[in-house]
């Protein structure tokens, strides 16, 4: 007995649209069962996870702030994944971006007078550092055929340890009792807040603008077309004369730059100093977000907001209902599995074939 996947003839746009919604519903139902088994009312848990965070201005801002780096990184990753390039190292590109931009902030610490150039320079430095760091696996792949999955992943640890070293060593606050962190940045090196309450910062605008830009580039430019063709049919792309090497470098540059920009936006927005860790795993969560959003920038924006919502709702559930953090993580995993599963089912039918395995 074996299972065969048979492609469905034609595409059903309604099914493609409904599938993620149904997957979400199924995940919520399964989560409800888990909550009930833990002895908590599923209705109360649903309210804590999905209603409470949406009913307060502050938590809405927090959702946007949390979703921004995820959306920005995942949008960049979409270019790679669409072209069948597996950049797993966005976390490292994020860290390097934050570090490079942060160095600009620390080098200009205390400058007086005209300081408007500092923040833009930081953002550019972060983006360029992310691009440069992503070029390492890209060039290794193009020149030597090294698997980008391994190199990009391993470079994450290199970046994390580099930041760790810098925050404990050269960039340490000299008046900070040897504790591993830099001095807090000057106001000129911080992204401005958009609303009262010091929560929503301008990094959210950067992320949103990037998603819009990426939508246009992917859908309406030759580069976007190349990315899509190479992903859908590498052979056709070769016949069309598209250079695979050039595309590899370009896609890695886009995703590295996006991750680096997200890194410095996080440092200049939320954190305001350099410390041994600046990311709670955004670069890895963004991989989930990219696929939840089915590699389309608008879908990614929605997926980032959903992941941010469940994370913040999960904190509320921890405080109010004593539901463990593991439940939130399990839910996010189940959601991804269901969305991907539903995706397969909209494109294929499953047929049970009698007989042994081939």
């Amino acid at each position, binding site marked *: 007995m074996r299972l065969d996947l048979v492609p469905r003839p034609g595409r059903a746009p309604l099914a493609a649209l409904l599938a993620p919604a149904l997957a979400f519903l199924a995940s919520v139902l399964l989560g409800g069962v888990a909550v009930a088994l833990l002895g908590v009312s599923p209705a109360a848990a649903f309210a804590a996870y999905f209603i409470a965070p949406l009913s307060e201005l*502050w938590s809405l801002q927090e959702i946007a702030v949390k979703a921004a780096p995820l959306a920005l990184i995942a949008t960049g990753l979409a270019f790679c994944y669409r072209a069948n390039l597996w950049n797993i190292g966005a976390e490292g590109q994020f860290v390097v971006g934050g570090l490079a931009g942060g160095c600009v902030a620390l080098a200009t610490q205390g400058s007086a007078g005209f300081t408007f150039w500092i923040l833009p320079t930081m953002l550019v430095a972060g983006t360029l550092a992310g691009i440069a760091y992503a070029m390492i696996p890209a060039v290794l792949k193009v020149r030597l055929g090294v698997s980008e999955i391994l190199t990009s992943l391993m470079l994450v640890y290199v970046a994390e340890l580099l930041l760790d070293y810098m925050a404990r060593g050269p960039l340490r606050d000299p008046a900070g009792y040897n504790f591993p962190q830099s001095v807090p940045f000057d106001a000129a090196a911080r992204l401005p807040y958009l609303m009262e309450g010091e929560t929503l910062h301008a990094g959210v605008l950067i992320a949103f603008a990037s998603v819009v830009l990426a939508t246009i580039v992917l859908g309406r430019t030759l580069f976007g077309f190349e990315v899509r063709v190479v992903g859908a049919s590498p052979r056709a792309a070769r016949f069309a004369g598209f250079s695979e090497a050039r595309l590899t470098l370009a896609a890695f540059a886009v995703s590295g730059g996006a991750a680096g920009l997200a890194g410095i936006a996080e440092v200049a927005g939320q954190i*305001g100093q350099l410390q041994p860790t600046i*990311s709670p795993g955004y670069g890895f969560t963004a991989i989930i977000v990219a696929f939840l959003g089915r590699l389309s920038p608008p879908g990614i924006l929605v997926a980032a907001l959903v992941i941010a919502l469940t994370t913040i709702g999960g904190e509320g559930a921890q405080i109010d209902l004593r539901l463990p*953090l593991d439940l939130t993580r399990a839910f996010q995993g189940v959601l991804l599995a269901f969305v991907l599963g539903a995706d397969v089912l909209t494109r294929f039918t499953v047929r049970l074939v009698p007989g042994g395995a081939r």
Partner: protein
Amino acid sequence: MRHSICAGLGAFLLLLGPARAADKLKVGFVYVGPVADYGYSFQHDLSRKALAEAMPDTVETTYLENVPEADSERAIEKLARSGVGLIFTTSFGFMEPTLKVARKFPAVKFEHATGYKRAANVSTYSARFYEGRYVCGKIAARLSKTGTVGYIASFPIPEVVSGINAFMLGAQSVNPNVKVKIVWVNTWFDPGKEAEAAKALLAQGADILTQHTDSAAPLQEAEKQGKLAFGQSSDQYRFAPKAQLTAIVDDWSGYVIGEAKAVRDGSWKSHDTWGGIKDGLVVLAPFTNMPADVKAMAEDTVKAIAAGTVHPFAGPVTKKDGTVAVKDGETAPDPIILGMNWYVKGIDDTLPQ
């Protein structure tokens, strides 16, 4: 008519109880690790449970675990917004976020562990863990047959460095030729890495292990190889009944209950607390797996430190580079211990800078 309805409704609500529940002081805790680490966060959570038990009618507790330091501001603000009146942020990395949220919520009281920045509504507290390490150093020097002790260290911050130095000074007071081998694992909690470090140290001739990381893995490795070790943060005897000599236990309960009481009766003020054995913040777990005379020595040392007759950093203390850190007849003042970034003489390791 309307007024009486409102009054009636109000009285009804009062009878129902939510008004009384709101009267309780909500106390929240933010942990950097899982509460099940059986180490640092676990001990902090024990103090939360002790608080809930000590003041069941006047206090309500809650917590957030596994909060990454880079993402802690929202978690702390979430607690402040949920009506929590007293918030314990239990890791050094929560310092700046704690101060920022404290500025936004002046009526909420904050307690930050192991930091050094305070505000009108932010206190700091920590424990003189080095006092316990001095005792452990003496025990290790008495019991080691190879004369070499393995030390698994987390990060080169002053708390850890002063612990290594106190351990060494305690050991040297028994055996001036004792050697301490140090492995830096760059983590507070990673059982796999800690076990690897333990194996490496035992293979290099150490027969006693001590650690400044939070899991019981090194202790279990020592147990497996028939060697001895010290527990960390929590009494980890049950993980290694044949290996654990004692453990430096962080006991925050008395402090946490005292602060909650102060908030309740309105006497809470911002302050810095750095307590040790004398104050009950540092407790040594029962001395096991050692002869009676070593046990007696350890107990005497604990008493002497509590009484103030023995100070781990009593002069003369010489730095590794030969300069005098503390003169004969003096003891190291707190700022020196709080900012310690040098080794004492005899430690054969270079401090990661």
